[in-house]
């Protein structure tokens, strides 16, 4: 028995908010992937729209910049027939000094049904979920270094699509792991879905040592890290989150940890290469790999829409 209820689940164990992968049971993750598969086929229809969220208002609240995530959430909400309102928060009320909860209270008074939140502070979506009305649902679209659960779900969908089964895989996550909410959420999802070997690969300054406590194998050598891997998840070098000299230079990073065809040859012959985007060609990934036959970076984007449709329609149908 948990001493504190998981704020993402209602008393029946159904998902009402998606804030983090951590603490979600395997059944919930698997159900979400299965549901996403249903929505993927909506793209093949004459009418690329289903009425599940008709009459609902979805507010995109992006306190940090994003193109891909915000756009795919918007497309997903529109394919579900929701009305989508995009708020350019950085340039609006917050800049005038309004607090986060006051912003939420005002938007709730405009009859919001769902908030998609990206925020630089870890935990901001939790705060909103705790204070919004019972019928309002919150999806974390990335908070600080903490979590990016829909990215993790679309990564899991991609892996399942190309590899079928999680329980025999070696997955290497490479690059700037310390600043990456994607890495954290991926590790939780991969662990819950039964991946036997998860490796975190990168320089000591960018790979937190405490990952070992999560059952992750930490590798500071690229060759050791990707040898025999079935899945390689490359991460973007997050210059905007780095303070101080964590790296000698981007060129030095590419020399040791950039994914080139030579290094990729160490992985399984049928390995897939993933990246949450945006990619920095020549910094963490060589163009020949990014555009090569192992790359599934663009399918990830397509799957992301179906996964976000699955998350939105699932939580909207569950009551607090």
């Amino acid at each position, binding site marked *: 028995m948990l001493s504190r209820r998981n704020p993402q689940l209602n008393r029946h164990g159904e998902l009402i908010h998606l804030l983090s992968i951590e603490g979600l049971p395997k059944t919930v993750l698997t*159900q979400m992937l299965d549901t996403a598969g249903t929505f993927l086929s*909506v793209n093949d229809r004459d009418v690329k*729209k289903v009425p599940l969220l008709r009459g609902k208002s979805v507010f995109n609240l992006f306190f940090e910049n994003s193109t891909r995530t915000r756009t795919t959430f918007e497309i997903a909400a529109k394919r579900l027939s929701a009305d989508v309102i995009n708020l350019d928060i950085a340039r609006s009320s917050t800049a005038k000094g309004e607090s986060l909860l006051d912003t939420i209270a005002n938007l709730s008074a405009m009859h919001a049904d769902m908030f998609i939140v990206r925020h630089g502070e870890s935990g901001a979506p939790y705060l909103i979920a705790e204070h919004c009305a019972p019928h309002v649902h919150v999806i974390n679209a990335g908070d600080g270094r903490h979590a990016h659960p829909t990215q993790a779900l679309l990564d899991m969908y991609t892996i399942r699509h190309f590899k079928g089964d999680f329980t025999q895989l070696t997955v290497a996550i490479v690059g700037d792991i310390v600043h990456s909410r994607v890495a954290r959420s991926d590790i939780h999802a991969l662990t819950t879905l039964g991946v036997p070997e998860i490796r975190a690969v990168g320089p000591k300054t960018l790979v937190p040592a405490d990952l070992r406590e999560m059952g992750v194998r930490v590798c500071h050598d690229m060759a050791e890290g990707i040898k025999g891997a079935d899945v390689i998840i490359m991460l973007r070098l997050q210059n905007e989150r780095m303070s101080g000299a964590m790296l000698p230079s981007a060129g030095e990073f590419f020399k040791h940890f950039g994914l080139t065809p030579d290094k990729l040859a160490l992985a399984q012959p049928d390995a897939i290469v993933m990246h949450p985007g945006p990619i920095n060609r020549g910094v963490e990934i060589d163009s020949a790999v990014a555009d090569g036959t192992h790359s599934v970076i663009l399918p990830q984007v397509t799957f992301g829409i179906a996964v976000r449709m699955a998350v939105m329609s699932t939580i909207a149908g569950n009551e607090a």
Partner: protein
Amino acid sequence: MSSPTTLNLDAQALYGALRQGVRSLLAAAPGTALVGIWSGGAWLAARLHADLALPGEPGVISSALHRDDFSERGLAAGGGTTKLPFAIDGQRILLIDDVLYTGRTIRAAINELYDFGRPASVALAVLVDRGGRELPIEPAFAAARITLAPAQRLSLARADDGRFSFACEEEGS
């Protein structure tokens, strides 16, 4: 219309009657494609398709994305996926389902069908019509017509050997 209150439905025998009924409907409207409603209707459509030696493959349609009880019940788990291996525009469609009750599933399935195109016509054949309609939907053929209490839930089951049977459950039990 007879109205037995005890349930003694021989699904295998009713399937034989449905096959006859569908054969007649297809003879009257050649070129009609079968589309089974997930899940029981899809099993029936697959069997009918094989037994009547129809060309191509039958369609499968899921009502999950157009259900009108989404806001109360949420997304149905395991609601299946629509697979229509032929063009819908201008096509005559015969929907197949196991049990016809309120008509809401049929309404949702027709909406789903229209997301793929504009069929020439849509008709419906079912194994059992249990009455209780809440929408103006009538089957072109029903192998049996019975009356059940609202709390009774009737559903088709398919054994490993392909034999059909009916399961009847009391709601809330």
